[in-house]
């Protein structure tokens, strides 16, 4: 395949197929370093803290949270939407960028997909524990119960269940299908022992046959094709949890695409956070290059701008609508008691991402890392602003009230961060963080030297 000479290479350094294999597999072949253990300790402690808080919530009741009569959802749904949003980047990278022929995605899709899966797990926890009676969660499934009652298909929460479980299943399958050849590589690299047997089992007997590759590719691209609308639908449906209500500030038609943009925005920020650490810690600078980071920064500008545009649109429309409730809801957002949250949201999401227009900042790893964390915070606050400021002052002024989170709710956020990082840390030691076979397939496209020495391969 021909590539324009003005493009930067996708992989740096003079790589051979063999060195790609050994570079990427090295964490699985060697013992973990002390930083890994340190990270593991911290994140599992955070996880334990969260587990305790979950237990506390289930045992005592939702009353242990700061929610109340008027603000029925707050911290937990904020965090839920945040995680779900983060869980969007993986599939976006794998699916949409695959469809749009963005070859650079090959070295980041694996870890982004893994991130998706872990984030969705963290997210899925919240709808469960936020229930008043979590032991009865099974009510949500349309099973034929003794009273002949099914579920309410009109409810966006039921759609959520279908959307999230489908999304999780498809993401997991997509990820695993992509992993199979690499597990095959691992199997063949490890000489013997239990590890080899396990990888052997997991590799599904992958041979690398041309027909298998053909089917594998077609399946991947078709999965990508269906995952594309899926990824859109999931956050759209999550946004409908809000948008289909009649709460001013929630009920707005722009929500589905705006939430999707926001999700990709926050997801990419999280990918940036993880990749900048991972590439450094695991020495994968040649595969995840500065131009990867820059490309992702460009997506951050795009999605950040869409999000900013949505903020402006909402604000304008609240005024334009002439509906006093809408009007008040948005005034209250910006100038009410939670103005600081609104400012954090605007500052961290819109203002900060616009800095990426500056090429120097866009190319700076340190700045990108900093910014990615800022955006993660900003996106959390975006959901907080949407949820809490809309609810706490809705229609009847008599019911207006304030919301203040408790330690338990913070514990849940910390706990899910713990789960997420624990899972991610385990992942990087068990499976290759970069898709070996896909990187090999673009090796020659990216490498100028190879290209020159072998011009006729196309």
């Amino acid at each position, binding site marked *: 395949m021909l590539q324009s000479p003005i493009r930067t290479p996708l992989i740096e350094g003079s790589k051979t197929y063999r060195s790609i294999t050994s570079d990427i597999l090295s964490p699985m072949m060697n013992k973990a370093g002390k930083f890994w253990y340190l990270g593991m300790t911290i994140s599992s402690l955070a996880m334990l803290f969260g587990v305790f808080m979950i237990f506390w919530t*289930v045992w005592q009741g939702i*009353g242990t949270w700061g929610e109340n009569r008027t603000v029925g959802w707050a911290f937990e749904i904020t965090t839920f939407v945040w995680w779900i949003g983060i869980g969007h980047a993986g599939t976006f990278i794998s699916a949409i960028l695959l469809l749009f022929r963005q070859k650079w995605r090959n070295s980041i899709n694996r870890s982004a997909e893994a991130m998706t899966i872990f984030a969705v797990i963290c997210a899925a926890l919240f709808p469960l524990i936020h229930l008043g009676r*979590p032991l009865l969660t099974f009510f949500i499934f349309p099973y034929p119960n003794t009273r002949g009652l099914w*579920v309410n298909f009109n409810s966006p*929460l039921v759609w959520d269940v279908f959307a999230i479980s489908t999304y999780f299943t498809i993401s997991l399958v997509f990820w695993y299908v992509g992993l199979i050849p690499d597990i095959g590589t691992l199997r063949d690299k490890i000489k013997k022992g239990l590890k080899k047997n396990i990888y052997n089992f997991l590799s599904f007997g992958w041979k690398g046959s041309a027909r298998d590759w053909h089917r594998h590719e077609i399946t991947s691209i078709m999965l990508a094709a269906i995952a594309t609308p899926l990824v859109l639908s999931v956050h759209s449906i999550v946004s409908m949890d809000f948008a289909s209500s*009649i709460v001013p500030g929630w009920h707005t038609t722009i929500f589905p695409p705006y939430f999707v943009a926001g999700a990709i925005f926050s997801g990419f920020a999280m990918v940036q956070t993880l990749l900048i650490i991972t590439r450094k810690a695991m020495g994968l600078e040649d595969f995840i290059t500065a131009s990867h980071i820059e490309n992702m920064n460009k997506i951050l500008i795009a999605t950040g701008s869409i999000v900013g545009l949505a903020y402006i649109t909402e604000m304008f429309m609240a005024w334009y609508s002439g509906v006093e409730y809408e009007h008040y809801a948005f005034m209250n957002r910006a100038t009410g008691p939670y103005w600081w949250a609104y400012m954090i949201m605007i500052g961290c999401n819109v203002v900060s991402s616009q800095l990426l227009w500056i090429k120097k900042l866009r190319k700076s790893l340190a700045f990108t890392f900093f910014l990615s964390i800022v955006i993660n915070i900003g996106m959390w606050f975006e959901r907080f602003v949407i949820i809490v400021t809309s609810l706490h002052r*809705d229609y009847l002024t008599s019911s207006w009230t304030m919301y203040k989170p408790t330690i338990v709710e913070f514990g849940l956020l910390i706990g899910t961060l713990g789960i997420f990082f624990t899972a991610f840390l385990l992942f990087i030691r068990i499976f290759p963080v970069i898709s070996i076979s896909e990187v090999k397939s673009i090796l020659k496209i990216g490498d100028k030297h190879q290209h020159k020495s072998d011009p006729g391969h196309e």
Partner: protein
Amino acid sequence: MKKYWKDIESLKSKKEVRSTEKKPEENELFALLSDPGKILPASRRDFLKLCGFSIGAAALAACQSKVSKAVPYVIAPVELTPGVALYYASSYINGNDYCSILVKTRDGRPIKIEGNPDSGVTRGGTSARVQASVLDLYDGGRLHGPMKDGIPSQWELIDNEIIEKLNKITEEKGTIVLLTPTIYSPSTEAVISGFLKKFNGSEWVEYDAISYSAMLEANKISFGKQVIPDYRFDKADLVVSVGADFLGTWLSPIEYTKQFSSRRDPEHDMNWLIQLESNLSLTGSNADKRIQIKPSQETAILLNIYKDILRSVENRNANAPESPVDVNEISKKLLASKGKSLLISGSNSKQIQLLVNEINRLLGNIGETILFNSYLRTHKALDTSFKTLVKKMQKGAVNALLVWNVNPAYTYFDRDAFTEGLKKVELTVSLSGSPDETNSSVKYLCPDSHYLECWNDAEPKKGLFSLMQPAINQIYDTRQMADSLLKWTGSTTTFHDFMYGYWVENLMKLEPASHNPITFFDSVLQKGIFEPGTSKTEIIEKHLTPGILPFNSTSIKISKGPTEKTLEIVFYETVALGEGRQANNPWLQELPDPVTRICWDNYVSISPAMAKEYDLKDCDVLKLGETEIPVHIQPGQAYGTIGIALGYGRLKCGKVGDRVGVDVWRMLSAEEGNIKNTGKLEKIEKTGKVYPFAQTQTHHSMEGRAFVREAELKEFRANPAAGNEEHAYNLEHNKSLYKERTYPHHHWGMAIDLSKCTGCGNCVIACQAENNVPVVGKEEVHRVHEMHWLRIDRYFTGEEDNPEVVFQPVLCQHCQNAPCENVCPVAATNHSSEGLNQMIYNRCFGTRYCNNNCPYKVRRFNWFNYSAAGTLTGNLRDKEEMTGDLRRMVLNPDVTIRAQGVIEKCSFCVQRIQAAKLKAKYENRALYDNEIQTACSQSCPANAIVFGDMNDKNSELNRLITSGRRYNLLEELYTMPSVNYLTKIKNKIV
């Protein structure tokens, strides 16, 4: 209303069992147990019935002694059908509070109090206190039996000792004093006079913590009768009230609310209410014009009114100081409605009351709006008599003190004098049923039974009698006070028999038609009331013809106006707690004050202007003398005054009420022998502490949104839809994308007349009692976790310093396009074919989505396991001990209690709807209009709530909802609520 009585009528034939005062359940039961050989014929069906009942019986018996197994009745009590409610007509008497009631019992347990619509006094109305009184019955903190020196004892032992001592004292010519609140039970009065006769030299002192003694004294001078007259607010076109909260707490608020609201119907003639006051009271918030005054200004204002009126009526002049407010308008209005006006004052100053009497006389109101035929008998005590008693006690001149149902060690401002005197009394006996500050230091405790366990009668107004009958056997080893007195007098009759005798002898003759004492008594007992026709002519003494009242305005002393710096304090009763008798009642403690919306506390009310001046914020703690008390900034509080509620800060009333709020009784003082409800304060000290309130509404403005729609009477007369123009617009614009549903059979709906609603909060408690709404406690209310299904929103309009107040009861609106239903994932909330928004508790798993999407925020979530119905055991959150076995007896078995983690909300009392439908079906007829009453509509003393079938074209509801005043809350959202509001029509005085 007559139709209602279908229930009670059916009891008629079964009355005998009741009136013999046997306890058939127990007697038969134990007879059977003691004679096992006796075989009784019982069909299987009977057996099952009895099994059912036995559960209730076992629950009852459990309170007396431990029963390890349930034993079925073999012979059924005749009137009981398990699962069917029985209603007993009775009376609520608690100190000065009176209400004629129906007690709803289920399986032998009283579970709900309802108003007795036949009563000429309360006319079916109730108050929050009455509604909540049923919970007092199941108060585990009540005294469980007789005690001596704090040690449980036996009635016989104690009786003997007391009789012995009383006799000894009498022999030694000592003084025995019986201290009670005002007693308006004729039979009890007879028992007491018997007691006084028996023990020579004994005295009877009546003491009311909230006293109207100045009024009594003034009336004695003005009218020759030391009575409180029969005020007729229904006859007055204009009511001018100077600090009298007659809709909330003044004298007989249930009665007055009924009367007053009957004149708030804009379709007929509407009255005017002018309120001059310092605190923003319930009455003040319903006033057409409210003028803020300081208490010290009352005399001057009244004198000016007097001057104006005297000049115009009798063409005489009177001296009056400069009036602090412009009274011209008031005088003019008063003069314009001569004979049809009413001037009242809440002051306990004789001078002021004399002045008020004189003005009313000049206006020709005596005999028109102020009647004496059936004068009010519920407030008879004079402060001076108690003061004399305390002095005597201090001197040691009292040998025995028998206290019943008063608590001077808490309510008397000079309580130290009283307790000091108490120590000098040889024999101290308390007959009060609950622990309090007074009986904690007496020797003998002979606890009275709860009124639901007692026989009694009452004559709250002259010539209007009512009966009280027990609805349950004594839960504890208690004995009614009158029985104790009879016992100590040496009588062998029970009080029931005594009362029966009294009625046959003295009252039967008032009803010339009746000859048979048994049928007479039973018919009264069945109706609960006896109101023989009173003579039409007024019975004011002849010599008190107008014009020669012994009144001289020049004798009135005008206290020097206090300096600007001095703050004046107004002490008031709250609607819920009054003087604090029911402080141990969690329902009342959790009832938000109608005006401030704060519960579980009292506080200093202070005007916004003053708060700014003193740099105070809500919840700042102040130091007033020795007491520390938090501040609440209350728009409408007169500048220069502060208001503090009495009845809080009790120390010995029980777990619930102890140390709730601050006790300020000590800050009262007496003037001319009468206890003043005002005080002065030199300075305010900030402590720097902050104290959070449990306040259920923190935003007080409607922000220009049309929740409560208002119009002036004039506008309304010109256009019945005045102030409600949006309704037509919305009707036109609310179009559906899909076919609207119809409810062809019944379509239940409600109309709430905002013109009538006074915001008293009675419906809130009625709803709580009917629907087993949990109590969550102060901390939880503070965290905005309150559970009331029905709340009363209160908004301020106009300026901050002198706001107008509107009330709006908000319950589930039962929207036809209910936003909550759409979003529930498990269809736990959906719509019935009769238009009800249903909530299925056991299907709910608590996503709270419905609550978020409810624009009315009427859904309540069980944040913790409040009701002990939780899915996890051992995680109960019940600070107020509402889930103890005893308290749970108040639960309505027709309404499920809700588990932790489920949403609950108003059901339109679906259990009542179903019961009535069943009954109608059984009787093979259609439902009558008004046959179904929800708890709130039934109890409303202002008749502001009407429930019915919107499909019934002839129903009262339909009449209301077709009027131009009808609108729906947030109707622009097209939720199509079944609850309709009627615009508030204000009779503004410009």
